Structures are given as C-alpha cells and as structure tokens.
C-alpha cells in the first residue's frame, strides 16, 4: 500500500534469508555428505508444516489489523480436522463433503466470535478465548478421545488437482496470501479494515460499516483456520482433538513478526505468511543442532522479541526523521 509497508515486507524477507543462510552455514555437513537442512525434501517439509500456521496467520493478521485479536485458530484447526476425520473415516462421506463440513465448523466458530464481538460487544480477547474453549471442547466431545487416520483412508498416491499431496497446502497458502493481499490493498473492504483498526470512531463517522467489517474479519479468520485444519488432516493424515495445541500464539506471533501491530491499523497478510515461514525454518532447523533440543522454545521466544523490537526501533527512527 504505502512505501513503508513494502519496505516492511522486504525486511521480513531479509530476516528469512538471513535465517536460512545462517542455518545453511551452521549445519554444513562435513566430508561431502548431503546437507541436512538445505535439501529439497527438507524444504518441502518446512513449507508443508509452515503452511498450517501460514494459512491461519493470514486471518490472524486481518483480525489484528482491524484492531482485534483472535485466540481461537488453534482450536478451530483441531475442530475442523476432527469433523473432517469423523465424517470421512467413520461415516465414509466423500472427502469433499467431509472437508466442506469441516469448513462449516469454522464458519460456525467465526460467526460465534463475530456475534460476541460485534453484537454482545465483548472484548475480542475474551470473546475468542471463549470460542477457543468451546471449539476445543467440541473437538474432544466429537472424538471421545479417538484418533482418525485420514491418510489410511486415502488411496495411496492420491493427488489433488494433479498436485502431489505434500504440495497442496503450501500452494494453498501462497494462493490465499496473494488473494488476501489483493483484497487488503486493492479492495475497499481491505481499506475499511485498516480504517477500523486505525480509528474506529473516525471510521464510524466516515461512513464505514464498522460492525460488518469487524464481523467479516472474524468470520474470514475462522474459515482460514478451518482450511488449515483441513490441510493438516489431509496432508498429515490425522484428525485428533489435541492437535494444534497452542498454535494460536504461534499464529499471532507470525502475524506480528510479519509487521502487524496489535494496536491495530498496521500489518500485511504477506508479512504474516513470511512470519510463519520464519518460525517454520526455526522449528525445523533447531532440533538438528546437537544439544539445542531443549532450547528451541526459548529461542523461538527470543526471536519474536528481537524482531518486534527491531521493527519498533526502525519505525521510531523513521518517525524521528520526519
């Protein structure tokens, strides 16, 4: 949109590139063996896992830009995966209709969050905390502790639209990121989301449908979380109620590292996806460093803080320069 945000996305790309270069150098194998980090299979693995976070982070970024926050994506991911799992594995529905039912579960969660925030006027943190509990609880009730082996039901070598299974969720993430980037920058709806997040009162006075805009972002965020739940169930082959525990924080962190400001009004969906990749690389590479196993959560936490602090320093300097 503005030059500043373009620069912001470029700096996220730069962080990602530095990170990849670092691990490439640090994990360089001795004596001509194949590189444990920098190889095609590992690249695909990173993309596959990151895309689960990345797809949901697109929605999280939009909610954050609108001035809200969504704590429910982890639970929605689990719920939609479980809905797909029980219908596809137990009830022998077709994959498409099971997936559609999973999406509908996301729609229901999104409508609940939207209604609580817009109609009941609960603070988003509380509203989505409640929805998170309800969605997670529903997933446990549906499964009764069972585990649905989705991959066992898929014919071997199954492809979606001619793509190998592993490629589908990264492709989906990229397509969604581009589509929502366009929506956020070239459509009035996206403009209104920035306006509501920047100054809700002024948005109301300026004729923006504030309630509609807020409701729409919670709905979209939940649907995207449901999509990533479906991707998780199909690509990783499982539907389980305790999947994606604590993902909500990683998803929010991805959006924030990608430039979204929790104060609202600033951020980028492309940045959020790049943020998810930054964490994906970390989570993949750290366990490969001997002795780092127990440090990886700590390092991930530090990285969030360092990136956000750096961003704030840069912003403060650019304001001071005016």
């Amino acid at each position, binding site marked *: 949109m503005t030059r500043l945000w373009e620069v912001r996305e470029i700096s996220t790309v730069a962080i990602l590139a530095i990170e990849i270069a670092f691990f490439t150098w640090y994990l360089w194998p001795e004596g001509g063996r194949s590189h444990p980090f920098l190889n095609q299979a590992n690249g695909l693995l990173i993309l596959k896992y990151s895309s689960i976070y990345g797809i949901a982070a697109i929605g999280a970024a939009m909610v954050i830009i609108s001035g809200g926050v969504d704590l429910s994506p982890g639970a929605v991911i689990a719920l939609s995966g479980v809905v797909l799992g029980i219908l596809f594995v137990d009830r022998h529905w077709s994959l498409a209709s099971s997936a559609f039912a999973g999406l509908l579960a996301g729609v229901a969660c999104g409508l609940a969050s939207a209604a609580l925030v817009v109609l009941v006027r609960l603070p988003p943190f509380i509203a989505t905390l409640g929805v998170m509990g309800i969605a997670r609880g529903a997933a446990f009730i549906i499964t009764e502790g069972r585990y649905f082996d989705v991959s066992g039901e898929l014919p071997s070598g199954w492809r979606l639209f001619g793509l190998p299974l592993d490629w589908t969720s990264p492709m989906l993430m990229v397509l969604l990121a581009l589509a929502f980037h366009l929506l956020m920058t070239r*459509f009035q709806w996206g*403009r209104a989301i920035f306006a509501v997040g920047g100054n809700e009162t002024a948005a109301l006075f300026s004729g923006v449908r504030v309630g509609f805009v807020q409701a729409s972002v919670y709905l979209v965020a939940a649907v995207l979380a449901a999509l990533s739940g479906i991707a998780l169930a199909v690509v990783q082959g499982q539907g389980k109620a305790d999947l994606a525990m604590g993902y909500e924080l990683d998803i929010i962190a991805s959006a924030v590292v990608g430039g979204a400001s929790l104060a609202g009004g600033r951020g980028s969906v492309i940045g959020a996806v790049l943020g998810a990749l930054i964490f994906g690389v970390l989570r993949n590479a750290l366990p490969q460093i001997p002795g780092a196993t127990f440090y990886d959560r700590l390092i991930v936490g530090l990285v969030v803080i360092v990136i956000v602090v750096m961003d704030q320093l840069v912003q403060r300097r650019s304001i001071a320069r005016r």
Partner: protein
Amino acid sequence: MPAVEFHRIDKSFGAVAALRDVSVSIDDGEAHAIVGENGAGKSTLLKILAGSLRPDRGELRVGGAAVSLASPREALARGIGLVHQEMLAFPNLSATANIFAGRELTGRFGTLRESAMRDRARDLLSRLHVPVSPDAAVESLPVAYRQLLQVARALAFDCRTLALDEPTTSLTAAETDHLFRILDDLKRGGVTVIYVSHRLAEVFRLCDRITALRDGRCVDTFRRADVTPDDVVQAMVGRTIPTRTHDAAARDSGAVRLRLQGLTSRPCFEEVSLSIARGEIVGVFGLVGSGRTELLETLVGLRRADRGAIAIDARTAPFRSPREAARAGVVLVPEDRQRQSLFFNLNLRHNLVLPSAEARRARLVRDSERAVSAALLRQWRITAPSIDATPDRLSGGNQQKITIAKWLALQPGVLLLDEPTKGVDVGAKYEIHGMVREMAEKGAACLVVSSDLPEVLALADRILVMREGRIRGELRAADADEEKVMRLATSEGGPGPTSSMETGVDA
C-alpha cells in the same frame, strides 16, 4: 529581575526548525501571553519550560540563573507548573490523587498520608472555587474542572510560575470566566502567568505583555496598552486579514433543503425546529452542553430522536447511520479531528477518498484516487509534504482542512460542521470559512455549530441560539452583534450558563 527568561533558544526536530533564536523575558508577577499560529513554536517553547524538551542551543534562566531541566518533575521542583492543552489527568483516580500524582505526601515508611493530602486538596479546591470533593473520580468531572485540577496541582507544589497552554479550547464562556477570575487572583498573589492562546480577546483581557511568534521566530513583544488585536494578528500571520462583507441577500432565495420539526431527544435537546435553504449558512451558537453536538449527531443517525421529523428536500430522512446519511448527501464534520475524523495509520490519499468511496459503495480501490486526492489538496490549498504522508505530519490547520475536504469530495447537499475551526490558527480559520462559503455557493445547505461567537457572526447568514437543548432565538446576520447573541445564549432565569460548572460535583 525576570522570573523566567528564554535566551536565544534554538530547537529543531530533524530538519524542521521549531524555534530559531527565540528570546523572551517574562517579568516576575506579570501575565505574559505567547501568541502565534499553529506551528509557530508556542508549544515547543512551553515544553522547554516544563522540562519535557531540551533546547539545542540557548539558555533557560529561572530567577536569573541558567537551568537545565531534565523532566517535568524538575520544573515543578523549581516552581514552574504547566497546565497542558491535553488533559494529562488520571481519569480513574480521585481529584486528590491527581493533584499529588508523582509527589505524594508520605510518612516515615513511605506510607501515603491520605488524610493530609485530602485536607490540602480540599483547601486548594476551595481556593480555586471548584465545588468538587477531593474524593471525586476525575472521569466524572467536566473538562473545566480537570483543567483547574492541573492549576491546583501547580499550587500544591507552591509554583510561582504557572504556564497555561490553550486552556480555554474546551471551556464554555462561563467556565472561561471562572478560570480568568482565578488567574486574576493568582496574579494578585504574585504568581507569574504565562498564557499561550489563539484567542486574542482572552489575551487582551488577562495579559500585561504579549509576545508574538511566527515560524519559530520571535516577532516582537508588545505592551498590551500599546497595541490593538489587529496589530497582534498582523504580527502573528505577517499579513492583514480581509474582513468579510455580508452578501446574504444573494443567497437566501434557494429552496428549503433541510427541515427539522419538533426534533426531540431528551435530555439533550427538545423541540428543535429549523429549516435551511440551499446555499444558506446557518450558524448555531450555544455554550458547551447546550445540546448542539447531540443535535448534529442525531441528524446523521448516530443517535435516535425521541420524536420529531427530519426532512431533506421535503423527503423524510431518518438515517440509521452516518453511512446512510452520507449516501443521501448529508455529512457531519465532527468536532474532534484526532478522535473522530483522521486515520493516522493511513496516508492523506486514503484519508481523503475514504468517505466518498464508502458512500458510493465502492468495491475496488480506484487508480484515480491519487489524482483525485492531489486535486483536493490543491483545490483547498492544503499544505502537505505529499499525498502519501500521514496526517501527523501536517499542522493542526491543515489537518482540519483534510477533515473537511474529505467530506467535500462527496459534494454534499447538507453540510453539518461542529466547531470547524477549533484549535486552528487565524490563517487556517479564514481558509476554512472560505471552504464553507464555497460549498454554500455550490448549493449546499450548511449548519455550523460553534462556540466561537465572532466566527458565527462572520460566517452565518442566520444565527440560531441554543441554550439548554432548545433554540432560544434567531437573528439575521445583519442584525446580530455579540451582545445580542450572548444575551440569548445566557439569559432568562434557570440555572443558566453556569449549570455546566455545577455538574459532576461529588459524583
């Protein structure tokens, strides 16, 4: 010996020089005004005095000695108290806690001496004639009292110098009177008053000497007795401002565009009936709390009326939201541009085209918006670094022009303005009046609410006076003068204009 002396002060923010070689000497016990347009450097000068900014070059001398103030706390310790333009109060705390915030009276073990502070607060409040309990929560108090709390805070620390930054911006006439009586008292008690304001009437009433700043430089210091307000305006703006002649006769022949009949929304306003023709500018004068803002908000659907009718071009128009109103060409330029109008996260281009895009239910962002917004900046002579800059880089006057221009882009049929020149400098004020007149000439019916009486007299073809939620009288601009309008706004029994000073007591 001067109480405070600014000696050859320079201060820059990046490439922008806010103060250049400014020297002002403020005598002990005098009331000294600092006037200037927005961006002239008045606030920067006060911030240096209050210790929240340090000068790049030059000296601040207090009681003859050069000092370097590192924080507002140090300034307070040297007897300099600042009453801020923005209300720096803790709304959730009591009046006492606000007065003593940061420098509480404490006992031997650091325990708070609550009752001692409360007694002291009660003394101070009664000295300032503020009928507020020391335990009253500040959020329940009207703005005028919050300001007086800042004065009380300065007195609690025995400040000998009191600096006030635009203290009357949000005050009614009665509240302003109250403040001035207190300042007169303090002056008699030997307190030095530094008074920063746009409002020359206030400056001439209170101050002994007047320093005019322009573009960060000190133009001159006048003795009040030697100058007229026109001289001071000229020093501030560096040019003479043409006075306006009324040409109302040419305009009031249009058909009625906006008609209100018996519009009531208790407890804000009652039985408001009025009609405005195409091309007419109607001024509504009333003190804060007279129901003016609520009336405008009802017209654009932000509030519901209990009863009564709103008609635009003879069609009833009960809008449910500002969006619906804007689609019908009825727009409100609200009072508080920072809170209600501007998006500081968006650039000027986005700010300017947002209302018109929303009103025509745009789906796509148009490529033409760049040209459209650049044209708006040119048309209304808005000074901005670029259309991609954010509004925080503009002066107050230009920010206000943005908030008006973004609605004018929509070519409204009914233009409602709430305090359109609040807190802007004289030059911007005249240009904003020009914007309103131009829209009227294009056929818009304009309703201007203002508590700035000279503004209403200068701008409106007809003046309605509101008091306690009712319209108390109507004057044609040609017959109106300040005295007639003020009499309608304040007179006739009842609690009158002081009522707003009495609210919030012990709440």
